């Protein structure tokens, strides 16, 4: 769902870049509080896994593919603010090295694919304390993709690229399928972490056992 250059007006791109920069800034400031020294490599590995998984487009209906987004997984493993930082690293490398997602749209892509999902999942983790981690992971992953799709549609419409009534149902429809894929991958990844290092998930979800 990476927005290329040319889809957004400068005003819309800037209006998205500002909250994205603020969220990434909070992530940088919380790198001390939210992450102890032993877990610094975990952040790198989470970013690397999300980059790798984003390359694995899976087919969904009608000649369309989807790929993993990763905001929910990052938020569950690292908390919402460091998740914003992780997605900014992934999307930055994709834009500057791989020409995947426009450089002028980078702020919007960080906002849509990183910040929105991380905050949705962060809120869900807070509200759903005590619920099974896999349930939070699955529901959060689906909602993160739908939030990203809705925001992308809105930004395209405000930019005058395509009418909202045209783009919003189309984006939400196709991303409902991709969101289901996101939920499956996120639950599988969280399950893999739970079976090897349950402390990494349980600490975050305040499910100390």
């Amino acid at each position: 769902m990476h927005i290329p250059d040319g889809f957004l007006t400068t005003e819309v791109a800037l209006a998205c870049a500002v909250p994205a920069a603020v969220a990434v800034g909070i992530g940088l400031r919380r790198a001390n509080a939210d992450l102890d020294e032993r877990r610094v490599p975990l952040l790198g590995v989470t970013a690397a896994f999300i980059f790798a998984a984003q390359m694995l487009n899976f087919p969904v209906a009608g000649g369309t593919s989807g790929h993993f987004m990763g905001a929910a997984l990052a938020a569950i493993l690292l908390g919402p603010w460091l998740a914003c930082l992780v997605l900014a690293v992934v999307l930055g490398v994709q834009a500057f090295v791989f020409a995947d997602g426009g450089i002028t749209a980078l702020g919007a892509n960080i906002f849509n694919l990183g910040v929105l999902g991380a905050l949705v999942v962060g809120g869900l983790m807070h509200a759903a304390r005590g619920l099974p981690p896999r349930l939070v992971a699955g529901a959060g992953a689906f909602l993160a993709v739908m939030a990203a799709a809705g925001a992308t549609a809105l930004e395209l419409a405000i930019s005058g690229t395509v009418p909202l009534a045209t783009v919003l149902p189309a984006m939400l429809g196709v991303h409902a399928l991709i969101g289901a894929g996101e939920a499956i991958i996120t639950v599988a990844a969280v399950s893999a972490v739970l079976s090897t290092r349950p402390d990494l998930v349980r600490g975050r979800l305040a499910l100390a056992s």
Partner: protein
Amino acid sequence: MKLFTIVALAVAIGLATAVSPFASAHPDGLEKVAEDKAFIAASKAGDGPIADYAFPGVEDPRLATGLAGFTGTLLVFALGVAVVRLARR
């Protein structure tokens, strides 16, 4: 932590290197909507050292994609750790 990091990084590198060449080549959700709703022409193709996940100078497309995935995964890991290390000073 060390073992977990090594295994998880190996999984990521393996996926990016060996599985990504076989990923679906269909347009993704946004690209498909842009084609169907006829605004794909507004997009401007960007450029980069490994544009479109094809490692430069490698003719075999699957090898080029796998090498791009390998490079990108290590780069993202290194950059993520470096950024956090700088932020923690």
